[in-house]
């Protein structure tokens, strides 16, 4: 009988695909080792508690590491694209920290957040759902 893979280990398994093949095995072993230690520490601190979500959240943190290694292994025009990593990392994480921080202080930022999410969601829906569905193409894609 095979043991079911725990959700946090599944996250590491999936994120491992972003890591260059040469480092993938070692990368997975390092994160599995750290998560197992973290789990043991949580269980020691609060025996019998459900630690799945804490482990899952910690495992999601591997995303930044995997992305960093991925970008560092890529070269475009003979140049490493690592600086792009910083741009993407800040663009994807900073708004959430910023907004959640604002929300935790006061709900007066709620309108701003709802508006930005509505615009972002609306744009994404139009670009990736409506356009392909209705077969609407941009002017540059049209052939004369």
């Amino acid at each position, binding site marked *: 009988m095979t043991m079911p893979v725990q959700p946090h280990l599944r996250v590491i398994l999936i994120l491992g695909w972003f890591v260059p093949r040469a480092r993938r095995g*070692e990368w997975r*072993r*390092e994160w*599995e*080792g*750290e998560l*197992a*230690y*973290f*789990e*043991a520490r949580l269980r020691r601190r609060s025996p019998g508690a459900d630690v799945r979500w804490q482990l899952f959240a*910690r495992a999601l*943190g*591997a*995303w*930044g*590491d995997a992305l*960093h*290694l991925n970008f*560092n292994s890529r070269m475009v025009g003979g140049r490493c694209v690592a600086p792009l*990593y910083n741009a993407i*990392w800040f663009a994807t*994480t900073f708004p959430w920290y910023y907004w959640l921080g604002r929300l935790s202080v006061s709900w007066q930022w709620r309108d701003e957040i709802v508006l930005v999410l509505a615009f972002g969601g609306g744009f994404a829906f139009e670009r990736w759902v409506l356009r392909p569905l209705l077969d609407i193409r941009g002017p540059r894609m049209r052939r004369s």
Partner: protein
Amino acid sequence: MTPVRLSTAATMVLQAIAHGYEYGFDVMDATGLPSGTVYPALRRLEALGLVDAHWEKHAVAQKELRPPRRYYEVTGAGKVALAEAVKRYPLLKRAFEGA
């Protein structure tokens, strides 16, 4: 050899390792930095030869019924770079005092 200019986060990570926080998660707990900052910093420090990584002894991990962890230690070049960086960020010097 050109001197390495470390960022604040990289200096904090290096300083934590120098103070005995040898594992990634321990460095996160000691510095309060998220994994998205600590691990890329560790990779950069390793690539620059400022820290060295080794695997924990299998017997130690086996005793606790878990896989071995990867630990980091500061190299000679790392100690020099840390001393230089701490001069530039004097407040960081006090961060681990009494730790």
